[in-house]
């Protein structure tokens, strides 16, 4: 190394070293390990729309369409009657079944908490 390298020569040397940076050999293959692990994973299912999805979507659309059409074409007298009945039902709920909403809320919370028990048990037993 008698003469210092010029910046251009340094660039070439550095690029050369970067391109010749060797790949390390693998100490062992991971194929068997990977294959053993994916046996326990269900085969991947690509996202696809099936005929069932189309039929369900059609039924829902028809139901919502029919509801919307009915509501908009009911006679005013019937609409007024429905409104009156719904207000009465709401008042009835408020006065007589006051316990229902908190009970439903707590029940739902308890149900959702119970759903986590199998997972938590699995994690604890690991």
């Amino acid at each position, binding site marked *: *190394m*008698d003469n*210092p*390298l010029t910046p251009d*020569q*340094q*660039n*070439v*040397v*550095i*690029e*050369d*070293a*970067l*391109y*010749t*940076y*060797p*790949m*390390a*050999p*693998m*100490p*062992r*293959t*991971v*194929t068997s*390990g*990977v*294959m053993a*692990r*994916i*046996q326990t*994973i269900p*085969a*991947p*299912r*690509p*996202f696809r729309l099936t005929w069932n999805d189309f039929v369900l979507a059609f039924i829902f659309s028809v139901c919502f369409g029919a509801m919307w059409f009915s509501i908009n074409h009911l006679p005013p007298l019937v609409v007024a009657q429905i409104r009156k009945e719904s207000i009465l039902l709401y008042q009835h709920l408020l006065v007589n079944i006051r316990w229902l909403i908190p009970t439903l809320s707590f029940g739902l919370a308890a149900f959702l908490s119970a759903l986590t028990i199998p997972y938590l048990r699995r994690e604890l037993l690991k």
Partner: protein
Amino acid sequence: MDNEQSFIQRAQKGDHDAFAALVDEHQRYIYNLALRVLKDEDEALDLTQETFVRAWAALPNFRGQSQFRTWLYRIVTNLCYNRLPNLRRSLADLGDDVIAEIPETDLTFDNPARGFESRELRSHLHTAIENLDENYRLLISLRYQNELSYEEIANMLNLPLGTVKTGLFRAKEQLRHALETYQEASWIIH
């Protein structure tokens, strides 16, 4: 490549043998990328295995918009982020203020590495590459070992193009500094 496409399609339908062929084909590259970043053989092997397990689970989402190997690099890089929490931040902190374009060096032109004790120089620089920070090692491995373009690296790491160029520029500056130190030491000896 057509062969790989057919393996990918078969694996997407749940064919284990096709997926095993893909693992055989790509594991060395994934392992090397993990090894360069983590600098630990066991961890790199573990990460390689984890990468393929995740790839299997996510295979239905692979639409072929990028190359399969690039897609695997993305998975292994995300796993590296989990192992090295500072890696993502150190990449983002590189900024993009250094240089807009990095000129590619023509290696065929008057390559002094052949004239100047090339083996020792290379070996010294390879050691210097190994001693770079993990963010630089990742960028260098993607660019030079795996031969991704700047755009592909930026896209894969979700970084601005300028940040990738800056990172590689700074890595080369550190290598230049290592080279100068080596040259100075050589002078003293001679």
